[in-house]
């Protein structure tokens, strides 16, 4: 009994410490500054939606939010599409150079963005892609290929051979076999991958920091950094900006909690 109490206390403390900063931030985002100074944990007297309006319009979070959404879609959808095909090639065919090519695709697992961001910047400059959303989308699709290829290949390999052969016997082309049979059967992995790509892209900071100087093309993480520097002492407004970034993540988290915990834990092993 005492032991049970200890366990629950321990877990509650751990959880509270993990969550409280976010709770406090949400509360702060709805207060006035004097109210905030009086008590951090106090319930806001009148919800100050004005803070969100300031962040959204003056802080240009409307633009950053839109950019973040566009970049996430622009990265996740093509990444899934392309990994579905590369994974298929490695799972279904034996061909010359397949071992080498597979290893080549996996380099990305051990090499972080930091090790290539400097030449990447100059490459994008030569391609006249700096200060555009393409500068965020294309490299991140490239970086997704390693993990995507690895996971999709594994997903296809776990599909019973008879199912695939049945479709071939039915006269389906490889293209049809891929998209009508194998891809739908790999839904759980596709879901996991999409979640991971979403979070990695939503959270990416170094790339947009380096390649996009023009605030028109900032995403939320870079946006909040400069926003914080401009509004240093107006905590409620900074808190509102922060809340705008983490609410979609919390939402995703609540929806896909179990898959997400599993996916991140698996994804963390990458690199």
């Amino acid at each position, binding site marked *: 009994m005492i032991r049970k109490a200890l366990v629950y206390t321990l877990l509650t403390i751990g959880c509270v410490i993990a969550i409280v900063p976010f709770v406090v931030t949400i509360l702060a985002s709805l207060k006035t500054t004097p109210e905030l100074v009086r008590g951090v944990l106090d319930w806001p007297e009148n919800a100050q939606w004005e803070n969100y309006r300031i962040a959204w319009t003056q802080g240009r979070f409307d633009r950053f939010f839109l950019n973040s959404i566009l970049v996430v879609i622009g990265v996740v959808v093509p990444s899934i599409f392309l990994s579905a095909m*590369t994974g298929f090639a490695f799972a279904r065919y034996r061909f010359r150079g397949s071992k080498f090519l597979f290893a080549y695709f996996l380099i990305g697992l051990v090499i972080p963005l930091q090790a290539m961001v400097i030449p990447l910047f100059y490459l994008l400059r030569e391609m006249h892609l700096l200060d555009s959303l393409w500068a965020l989308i294309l490299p991140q699709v490239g970086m997704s290929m390693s993990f995507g290829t690895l996971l999709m290949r594994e997903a296809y390999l776990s599909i019973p051979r008879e199912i695939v052969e049945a479709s071939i016997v039915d006269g389906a082309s490889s293209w049809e076999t891929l998209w009508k049979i194998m891809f739908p059967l790999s839904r759980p992995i596709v879901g996991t991958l999409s979640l991971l790509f979403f*979070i990695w892209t939503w959270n990416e900071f170094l790339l947009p920091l380096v390649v996009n100087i023009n605030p028109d093309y900032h995403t939320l993480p870079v946006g909040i950094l400069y926003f914080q520097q401009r509004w240093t002492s107006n905590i409620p407004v900074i808190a509102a900006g922060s809340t705008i970034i983490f609410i979609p993540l919390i939402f995703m988290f609540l929806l896909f909690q179990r898959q997400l915990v599993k996916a991140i834990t698996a994804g963390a092993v990458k690199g």
Partner: protein
Amino acid sequence: MQPLSPASGEVSATEPSTGSVATPLGGKPRFSWEPYLYLLPGFLVFTIFVAIPVAGTVVLSLTAWNGISWNTAEFIWFDNYLTAFKDGAFWGSLWNNLKLLPFFVLLPAILGLIPAVIVHQGKIRGEKFFQAGLFLPYIMPGVLIGVVWRWLLNPVFGPVNDVLKFFHLPTRSWLGDFTWALPTVGAIGAWAAYGFCYVVFIAGLQKIPSDLYEAARLDGAGGWQEFIAVSLPGLRREIAVVMAVNLIAALRAFDVIRATTDGGPGFETRVLALYMINVAFSANRAGYGTALAVLMAVVTLALSTLVLRFLGERDD
């Protein structure tokens, strides 16, 4: 979960597959362009935006390029590496990364391991709920974590100092203090990771066969002995993974630090990634910056290989 094809049994390979799929595993190899066509788009994007920049890092690290005019892009071979060797700022930054290790690697691992072991030994309800709460910080962007903690730790109106005052503990400008800035940044890193460690450990513990515990108990092992004899060896792989992941996070630390101290006060929290980005883009020393990137990658690879070797290999 996956629907099985109703015909799966009957149609099994009675005929050899002669369709357009070149060689379903095991068939006779026949040349086909198909796999290459499937690889092509992914290959192109990967090559242009990952492989070429990676190769570019290595090549540029051998030049004196300033990133602006190609005239300066002459090969100076290993001079950049010699420069790094003599560069106090490089060693200082590396040292700061190493000083982060106890906070980023050991602290969250211990903070995750202890509750995992205690929880595992007594079944509890609502475990998934607790897991979710603990895990939350780990999915948040580092910048956001930095922005939030910078406010919480603010010396004038931050709530952390209020709490400390309440318990009659010393208060200070945690992120602005020459002695305390680095441990504070480290503590933020530990805060962000301990829930992740917990989740990995509890999943690992659940995989340990329960008869091992029963056997230990029959041998008269107490909780502590059980932990040493059964849990710890059973968690070998998880410990290795957590240590490696945390180690890599410590050596690549950038987002949280950029948003909290930006390397300050002075250079107390300047880490390799920050120094590298400044060298390349603020000081216009692209060549030297890439050399630092290579050194960083080498250090990371060496240390993480060491950890994985030492604690048991990964199985994939």
